[in-house]
């Protein structure tokens, strides 16, 4: 059987093409894995550790000081719940400040190129006689002293819904509810489509419209990979009940900052926890219960 030159060339060309394509595909698959490997939920513990180490290194370079990026998992038998006493809240916004400092949010920079301050807690001011009427509220109150006469206040942050509408609309599974009830975001997975912001009934999700401004001197170096590690432009962020604190036994920062002691926090599965005591002794309500979101954030009036 004679092998004509033409056939040979043809065969050679085809096989070269096949091999090259296969190799390229192999490379591409590796590259793709590399590209996709930031999917935190698909990582093994070792990969998560390596990933945290990488962020630590990046942050250390960027902010010039050592940081710790933890990946503490949920504590078994714990579901976090929050209570807020509206009789006590006087709208002083100390919780907001503590939250921003704890969670490495983008700071105001009126003179910088980007002024995109992000706050996870919104404190609304309402007329006392209006009850809780969000339509007639404002977050931009500036009286000399709070509480202003005739005004009532309600801080709103992520309600950590048990049936979170934001999670179900995310097209890329970048946000989910952890076993301890905290709804978290994988900042490296988020594509910034803002579906979750449309779906959230509480305005709790915030978008990095421009490059976040976080001065190195103000960085909180205790971080969690699903919590307060610095975010990038174009992704959504939200309250995580200070996952870096609460998973290590501490109260959230807003809880500790409240000067009127209006905040209650604890484990919903522990009958002796403060939050369960609250549910047992006070009448509580949740915001927009008609939406079936089952928030784990309870408001009450102690007097």
């Amino acid at each position, binding site marked *: 059987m004679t092998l004509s030159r033409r056939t040979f060339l043809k065969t050679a060309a085809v096989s070269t093409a096949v091999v090259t394509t296969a190799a390229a595909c192999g490379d591409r698959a590796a590259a793709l894995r590399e590209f996709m490997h930031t999917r935190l939920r698909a990582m093994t513990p070792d990969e998560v550790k390596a990933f945290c180490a990488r962020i630590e290194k990046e942050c250390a370079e960027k902010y010039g000081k050592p940081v710790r990026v933890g990946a503490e998992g949920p504590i078994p038998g714990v579901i976090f719940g929050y209570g807020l006493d509206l009789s006590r809240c006087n709208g002083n916004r100390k919780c907001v400040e503590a939250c921003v400092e704890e969670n490495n949010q983008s700071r105001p920079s009126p003179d910088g190129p980007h002024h995109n301050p992000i706050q996870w807690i919104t404190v*609304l001011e309402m007329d006392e006689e209006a009850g809780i009427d969000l339509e007639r509220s404002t977050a931009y109150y500036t009286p000399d002293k709070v509480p202003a006469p005739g005004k009532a206040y309600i801080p709103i942050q992520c309600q950590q819904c048990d049936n979170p509408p934001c999670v179900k609309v995310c097209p890329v599974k970048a946000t989910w509810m952890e076993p301890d009830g905290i709804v978290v975001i994988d900042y490296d997975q988020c594509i*910034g*489509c803002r579906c979750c*912001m449309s779906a*959230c009934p*509480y305005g709790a999700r915030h978008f*990095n419209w421009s490059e976040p401004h976080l001065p190195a001197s103000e960085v909180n170096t205790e971080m969690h990979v699903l919590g307060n590690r610095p975010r990038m*432009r174009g992704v959504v962020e939200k309250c995580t009940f200070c996952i870096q604190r609460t998973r290590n036994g501490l109260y959230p920062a807003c809880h500790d900052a409240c000067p009127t002691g209006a905040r209650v926090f604890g484990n919903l599965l522990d009958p002796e926890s403060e939050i369960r005591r609250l549910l047992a002794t006070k009448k509580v309500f949740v915001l927009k219960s008609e939406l079936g979101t089952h928030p784990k954030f309870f408001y009450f009036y102690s007097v």
Partner: protein
Amino acid sequence: MSALTDHPFPQFVRGSIRLWTHGSRTYFVWLAALVTLIAVGIYGYSIQFREGLVSTGLRDPVSWGFYIGNFTFLVGVAAAAVILVIPAYVYHWKPIKELAVLGEVLAISAISMCMLFVTVDVGRPDRLLHIMPFIGDLNVPSSLLAWDVVVLNIYLVLNLGVATYALVSYFRGREAKSKLFVWFVLASIPMAVCIHTVTAFVYNGLPNRPFWNASLLAPRFLVSAFCSGPAIMLILLQILRRKARLDLKPEAIWKIAELMAYAMFVNLFFTAAEVFKETYSGTHHLKHMEYLFFGLEGKTALVPWAWTSLIAGIAAFLLFLFPASRKNPVTLNLGCVLILISVFIEKGVALVVPGFTPSVLGEIYEYSPSKVELMVSAGIFGVGALVFTLLSRAAIAVLNGDLRVKPATPAAA
């Protein structure tokens, strides 16, 4: 080798390329205009890419805007191709059959624009692969946006397949009637309903946004698409008839216009039903409609648009209602333009923005598209127009018989 190049498909491609690179002065002026538009869009996007989405008018309270509005409108346009496909393929209704190909070409351009609008709207375009089926981890069946991506991709593939197969068949002087082809065509019909329904469901499934959380939303999307899609088709067909010697029978236009009249009636009826329900109930939910039609707290940017849309919609309906005016080319085209304006405003501005205003916490932020958004949108419409121009140029040539397969070359070589 020669067998490969002589295959009808490469021939068709070569023929098409020849058509694209040759043409009248008007054609090249038009191309130049589109390229300029695209350049403007690229410039706008370069700003947005550098600065982030902060260069748009979007902010936390109104987190979707002109981009997503245009996306929604164009999904409707794409879906409307079905109105031409149903009679053409299912009922073998001759006058429309060939036009159906143009409908599919329009659908293809509209979907390309949809994809581009989604791309420019996301905060991390570098991660867009996360949302591609099979590559990323799509949140199906839970996320309607993920569904939307799936059905839009399927719809795009179906339309590409159907249009290409039909054109290549006509190119070869044959009827397009392979069994697989028929199934594709039939599949594309529910898919057209799907893309618009699922897009509507993206909004509809958000109970925290009462302006969208009405079960009439998806039906309204469909009927408004059945108004705007054919309106674009009618205008384009007439332009093509003049400029590209498209053989267009008046009965085809009249038939489309008649179907549009029904759609417009249903559209107005649905709108009226919504308005009644909200105004008579007078709950908080009315706020959004109030903002749209009257403004809230002195913020009235949408008011002129809302009334323009409503009045244009009613006027177009009246023009299409009477056979005399719907068969008169002047009033017909006026009606088309009016309904197009009406639906474009309704979907592009009056659907998305009032849904966010007031926000879930009662904040009223007055959104208006920034210059960057307008530039980028113009660029995307430029891309869509370019796609349509090129594809329809080839399609019409095939339908005219100007582009036909050459008889097999003699085997002399």
